[in-house]
Every structure is written in C-alpha cells, then in structure tokens.
C-alpha cells in the first residue's frame, strides 16, 4: 500500500509538468499580454516596456518557464501582474467561497437524493420509482446555466426571497452567508442530486439482495428497520466516493455558476485571469487545481481499496 502511494505520487510529477508546460505555452500563444490589458488606455511605450522588463515578460518563453518552475519548487507561486498580490493569497481567499459552495451543494444534493433514492429503491418498479429515475435523468440533462437563470428569475427577481448575486462569508454572518449561497448551491446541487440518486438507488437495490438482509427480513424485522440497520450504511459507500470525486471538480470547476451568481470563487478567478492574461495567476491556479484534482482521485482510489478489498487497485 505504501509503495503504491509512492508510485502514484511519483506518477503525478510528469502529469503536473505536462499541465504547467501546456498552460504556459497555450497562454503565450494566445494573443495579448497582461501589460496591454492593464494599461489599455495608455499609449506610453516606454512605461510598458519597463514594466515588461521588470516582470521578466521580455524573456523567451522557455526561460520564463524554467524560472517560474524554479520558484514554484521553492514554494513561491509568484504575484499577480494586475494587482501585485501573491498568487497563493489570492487563491487562499478565493477558495473559501468555492469550498463553502461545494459543501452546501453536496448537503443539498444529499437532502434531495437520499429520500428520492430510498423511495425509488424500496418501491421499485412503481410510479414512485419511475418518477425518481426520471428526476435523476432530468437533473443530469439540465444545463446549469439555464437552471441558474431560472432560479434567479423566480426566486431572486420575481419572488425576491433570496439575493440574486454576491457573497457573504457564512463565518462572518451565518444567515446572510447561507442566503447568498443557497441559489448557486441549488444550481450545482440539483445535478449532483441526480447523480447521487442514481448511485444510491443502485447500491440500495444491491444491498437489499444481500444474504444478511434476507436473514434480517426472515427474523421478522420491519422493512424500514432492515433498511436502517443493514442496508443504508453499506449503500452509502459508493455515494461517499462520488462526493469525494466531485469535491475536486466543484472547486475550480463551477465557473459558470460562480459567474452567473457573482461568487468570488476559484473558477471565476481563473477565467478572469485568463481574460486579463495575468500569466502568473493563471499558471498558479491551474497548477493548484490540477494538483487538487489528482490528489482527490488518488484519495478516492485508496479509499476504494480500503473500503472494499475486492476492488483494490492494480
């Protein structure tokens, strides 16, 4: 197991190198540069040239990449071109809303998915079941930007129950914070709920056929007691896995949701940085997102092996 982890960690190094080299070359192939964007209405060529020199943007790409890599290895992700702020601080600040959004979306998805999946599984092949599976399919097929627009339209503008945009840190003001996160969390959570409904329903059905369940039933336990005592816990394992995998994607991947709702999260940060050609910021964030993604994959793989030795990884 230990060797396996080491091996997998070793394999991530070339991946991260490829990712960073890829983003580096893509960015530099892209027309435009950060100084032009920053000083769009200024025509002073010498000022711009000085700034480029100071930031090292006048050097060949390969040299810039090696220099950047060198700094990264020493733990320095550099500073944003636009506002001079260290990349790590920038990400640190932006990851809070992203994380909160992801967690709330997961909570909401579980709240929806658990009863739906349970009803579907227990009353399988009935109209309840069909309604549940149809819901799951629709949730997956619903484009989230459309859902976001509809939610804003109905709950924010028409009913005015919830704020349509902006972010309050729940740590500062719990109620205002949660209110600011509800609509985006529902947007993300609904699709997630659909996935979890599917997963949970199948795993419940599987668990319901196990021998110990039959034994429990034979002992005369009520259906609900059987489910509570024997089925639910086992059936939740794949759900936990799905959630774990999603966390990596939701942080940094919820670009559209963050955009439409004006949440200052990691996804929006990276897109804004691309538009501003803020090279160090894009590179830093992409590196961190990729590392996070790889880490969550690795974790889930290990978790799998630990939960169920039968599916231990090759």
């Amino acid at each position, binding site marked *: 197991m230990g060797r396996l982890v080491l091996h997998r960690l070793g394999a991530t190094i070339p991946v991260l190198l490829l990712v960073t080299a890829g983003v580096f070359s893509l960015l530099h192939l892209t027309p435009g540069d950060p100084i032009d964007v920053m000083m769009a209405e200024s*025509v002073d060529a010498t000022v711009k040239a000085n700034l480029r020199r100071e930031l090292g943007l006048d050097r060949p790409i390969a040299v810039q990449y090696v220099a950047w890599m060198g700094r990264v290895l020493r733990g320095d992700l550099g500073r944003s071109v636009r506002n001079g702020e260290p990349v790590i601080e920038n990400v640190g600040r932006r990851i809070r809303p992203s994380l909160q959004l992801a967690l709330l979306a997961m909570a909401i998805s579980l709240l929806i998915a658990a009863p739906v999946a349970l009803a579907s599984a227990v009353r399988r092949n009935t109209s309840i079941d069909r309604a549940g599976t149809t819901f799951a399919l629709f949730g997956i097929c619903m484009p989230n930007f459309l859902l976001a627009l509809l939610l804003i339209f109905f709950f924010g503008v028409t009913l005015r129950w919830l704020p349509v945009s902006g972010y309050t840190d729940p740590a500062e003001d719990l109620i205002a914070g949660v209110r600011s996160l509800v609509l985006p969390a529902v947007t993300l959570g609904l699709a997630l709920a659909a996935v979890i409904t599917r997963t949970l329903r199948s795993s419940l059905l599987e668990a319901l056929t196990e021998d110990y369940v039959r034994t429990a039933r034979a002992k005369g336990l009520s259906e609900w007691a059987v489910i509570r005592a024997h089925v639910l816990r086992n059936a939740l394992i794949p759900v936990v896995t799905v959630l774990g995998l999603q966390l990596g994607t939701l942080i940094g991947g919820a670009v559209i949701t963050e*955009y439409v709702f004006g949440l200052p999260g990691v996804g929006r940060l990276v897109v804004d940085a691309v538009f501003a050609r803020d090279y160090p910021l894009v590179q830093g964030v992409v590196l961190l997102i990729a590392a996070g993604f790889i880490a969550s994959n690795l974790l889930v793989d290990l978790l799998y092996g630990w939960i169920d030795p039968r599916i231990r990884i090759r």
Partner: protein
Amino acid sequence: MAAMEPGRNAQSVSRRAFLGWCAAASGAPAAVLGARRAEAQAPAPKKGGTLRVGFYIEAATMDPHLSGSKIDRQVYHNIYEPLVTLDVRLGIKPGLAESWTQPDVRTLVFKLRRGVKFHDGTDFNAEAAKFNFNRMKTEPKSVRKGEVASIDSVDVVDPYTIKINLKRPDAALLATLTDRAGMMVSPKVIQERGSELERNAKGAGTGPFEFVEWVKDDHLVIKRNEAYWNKQGGPYLDRIRYRPIPDDTVKLQSLQAGEIDVMDYVAPRDVAAVKADRNIVVVDVPSLAAFSYQLNTTRPPFNAKALRQAVAYSLDLDQIVKGVWLNVGVPANGPVPPSSWAYDRTIPPIKRDLARAKAKLAEGGQPNGFGFTMTTANIPINIQEAEVIQAQLGEAGIAMKIKLVDAATQLANGNSRNFDMISYQWSGRPDPDGNSYQFFKTTPGTSLNWSGISNPQIDALLDRTRETFNAAERKKLFSDLTRILQDELPMIYIVHPIEPKAFAPRVQGYEPIPDGMMRFKDVWLK
C-alpha cells in the same frame, strides 16, 4: 442636485437634462435650470447612513499614480482630490488649487488652498504638490508619465504656490489635471508605506471620504472625513460601501431587490424597464465617450479611401442608435461628444446614401462590392451592433465577416494592426484633445492610432489645438478636424452613448458630471 426626483418624473427630467447637456455645448443653460428646480423642492440634507454602490468590476489599485483602470477613478474621486475639477458642463473649476494663471503658454501657476490636510494629518502644500508631480514623472511603474509628459519641471514659489514649467504649449493639460494626474497623495504615506498604498489608502488623500478597508473581491469601504476642509455642503454619508457586480443584469436585479442603492451603469436594454420602475430613479449622464471602428489604412481593402467611404455611406447610424442602443446615446459626427464645449452641432453625422456608396465602390475599384472582417469584442451589445452593421453593408454589396475576440486579443490585434476594421470604445476625456490627438496624430510606435492614418493636414491641425488657448478658436479647430475626418475616415464614429446611472429613491443630491465619475460629497440618504 440634478434630476434626483423620485419616481416617474425621473424620465422626463433626465431627458430634459440630457437635452440640456447637448444645449450646453451651444451655450444654453437648460440643464442647470432643470436642476435648480429639483433642488428647490428637495428637503434639507441630513447626515448619516451607508451608501451601497454596485460597480461592474473591482478596483485594481489604490495608488492613483499607478492606476491604469477606469474603475479605480470612481473610488479616487471620493478619497483623493485633484488640483482642479470639472463642473457639470466640463468647465474647469478650483479643486485643491484655489486659482491659476498662465503668464505665458509654457507656464502654469497654481495658488493652492490653505488649511487642507491629508487624512494622515499632514499638510497639503506646495512641497507636497511638487513631490506628487516628481513621483508621477520618475516612479518606474508610474502610469501617469504620458499625461504629464509636457511638464518639464515644478517650482515651489512659496508654501502655497507652485509654478509648472512646460516643455511645449499644452492647452489640454488643465483638463488632464482634473483626474488622476492632478490628484494629490500624502508624501508621508508614499514615503512610509509606498508599496502598501496599492492595497491600502489609509491616510493618503484629502477628499471628503477616507479609506477604511478593502476586502478584495468583496467590498471596499470609505468613511466620512470629519475634518474635511470644505465646510459647505457634505460629506453627509457615514460610509460608502462599494461592491463589484460584473454582470449588468445581476447588478440591476440587486438594485431592484434593495441590495444596493446605486449602480454605475444601466445597459440600454434595461433603461426603459428601469425608468418604468417607480422604485428606481434613473439619471441619464451624457458621457465623454465615442464608440467607433478603426479602419486599417495600411493594408487592403481600407488603404483605399474610397472603400472606407463606401462603408461609411452604407451605414445607417440612426437605425443603429435606435435599434441597438435604443436611443441611449446619439449618433456621432466625430470624436467630440455632445457633452463637450467643443462639440459642433452644425456638423451632421454621415448620412446613409447607397447610391453614393455604390459610386465609391466603383471608384475604389470594387464596383461589385468586396469582403472584409470586422473584429469586435465579445459583448452582447457589440455583437448586436456588428450584426446590424453586417446587414446594412450587405445591402450595399459589401460582405462583412464578424470575428469576436476578448479584450486582450482585441488590444493585441489593434496594436499590431492585424485587422481590417476593429471596434474601439473610447471612454473619453474631458478635453477634446484626449478624444483625438492620440488617435490621428502620426506617431511611430505605440499609440491609439491603430488605423495608421498619417495626414500632414490632420497633424498640423492637431498641433495647433494644443498651442491655442482661446476656447472659441480651439472649438473651430476641432470642427475643422471633424470635417476632415468625415472625409478621410480613418475611423467611423457610431455613437456617443449616454451612461445612465440608477439609484434607490432614498439617494439624494447626486450631481452628474459627464466624465461619469460618481462624486458622493453632497449625496445624502432620505
């Protein structure tokens, strides 16, 4: 003061105000009258409250000498003060300088206001002013260098008088000093925490409000300066809280939902609906902006003047302004906006004339029409405008392709002259010089002259506008320039937009200046 009546009246008043703006160019003071009436009805201002302002993007830096972003100025105009400021008709009025004289065309003498203190308690005086100009000229990262390029040196005459020595006559300098280039920052703050100033402007300004905190991506708060030197009027507000809301629709919804009190800009598509909303007050602020397209005169097809003209004569500006801008703007006759004293209303915008366009196509050697690509920003209203232009040109046999790019690509394409026709939305400057010189002057190297126009007649005219100090004479020069540009057509001007701002009805006392900056000194909450 102007047009801040609640409810339905807002529309008629603001329309009147806007016509007034245009009239102001020809000398009729309609806007001010309309405003006075509103003021007379208004109850007395009272102190207190927090004003919540929604802006389209977050500020970039708090250091006016390093700022290259338009949005920063919105905050600056409340915490910093320039030597001179603009009045509602773009005239120059005293700011931190009480008065100024011009002994000769190369000298400008400012008498500074006494008793002004920076928020850190230090005095504002001639030494401080000189320090600021030196920093703008020498700081390596200074973005103000170009704006103060005509300044050779600054002398301290006495503790409250400075003399600015110019390298060359610069009639536009005074107007330039109404903004960031004229803003005075505490020398002590710069010396002690210069690098931190970008993020934290505590103690740095002299303005009616002082910096409190800036939580990036979330909010920026300023509070009333209790020791403000000007005892007339405000500041009344306890605090102002700025919030970035990038999406126009969402920002409007936030205003409707009562989450903010002020929004910096209402998109044309929303103007009618917002004006019909009794809970929102709209103020039409005519802007200094000129939205246009630059035509690449250095390569085919637009190196042929006749083909540039063919495009211009094929366009129906009235239809564009009505159909795309929904009349939230006026068709443009050239670079000078109607809000400027230099605007010449006797020059009509170019009229659509398909027969003439056909003749010009033949003259340009393309009797059956030709094809080219328009590069424009990936923004809904730009796309709409491009689509309408495409249809109009199609009727003249000109096949235009549309290429959408992001802002950075647009700048790169423009600077490298890698385009046929490219959109250019200039936010405008108070002096007409800022809307013309850098676009049409023959300048090697970097400039906003993307069209590559180089015309001795235009160059000579532009130089004379900088050496002429008599306003009437300067106005005539800009009229001549506008006429030549309508023939030469390095750029095709489309619209001078209006930039409506929207308020919750409890917001009182806002005075719209056409530079679009929201100065909250005299604003109060009912």
